[in-house]
């Protein structure tokens, strides 16, 4: 299978524009050292940490549900396991 060139300058800028979101409340659920962290998109520090992933997801859902938001749950290797969107 031949490889497609996927990168273009404008596509790179589109991906980069998501690094600093303006209006959307996106929360990431990420496995830290031993606890699950809830992190607001664009930040490098956890809002809160939890012992279990379910506790972290519920906390993130509560926040996202108050706005137009999204909870992104990551696998232990950083890839995306699930997304939950909320519209108000």
């Amino acid at each position, binding site marked *: 299978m031949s*490889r497609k060139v996927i990168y273009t300058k404008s596509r790179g800028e589109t991906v980069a*524009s998501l690094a600093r979101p303006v209006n959307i409340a996106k929360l990431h659920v990420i496995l830290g050292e031993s606890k699950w962290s809830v992190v607001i998109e664009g930040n490098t520090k956890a809002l809160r940490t939890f012992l279990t992933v379910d506790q972290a997801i519920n906390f993130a859902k509560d926040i996202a549900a108050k706005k137009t938001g999204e909870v992104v749950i*990551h696998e*232990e290797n950083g890839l995306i396991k699930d997304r939950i969107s909320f519209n108000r």
Partner: protein
Amino acid sequence: MGFESNVFINCPFDDEYKPMLKALVFTSIYLNLVPHVSETISSSNTRIDQIKRYIRKSKFGIHDISRNKAMVVGDLPRFNMPYELGLDIGACEFGGKILKSKKILILDTERYHYQKVISDISGQDISAHNDEPKTLISKVRNWLSSNTEDIVLASTNEIWIAYNQFIDDLTSILSATYTEEELKEMPISDYIKFTNDWIKKFKQI
């Protein structure tokens, strides 16, 4: 960007290793290094010449020898990685003043596997990542920190959190246009460009 900020990455390119490679490239760029990955070389007959050029122009070398064994029964182990590692160590050992300042990190899945297959590298910086991207980020970050005096590097946790967000942003934009298979096959040179653009924006405060 010159010798001091270049890093030569010598690692496997199989699908199983992709999350590790992505984390490794992201960490390098996040820590202000310029990664040079041998997969980006297109022509096989110039491959080794290009690798030698990368070795010559990179202060840092990161070599993952975890595929120095058969991954599946019936497969053969890969020896390109230890060969290129040998070239890098040789450049450091026998090169001029600048090359003697090279820093080399050897990564493996398990801590003592190398002793069974390539015991002569004892005495080098060797770390085990357990095939976990976060552990890999931590090992690379801590090794760079110990080799870059007077510079305080971002913490492992900061890099890991940023990396998770980047993967989400990249996936959510590209999955609208490309299939999962196409994204899996994305050239590493494209991935490096996306990473550069994203980190530049992410670090703007």
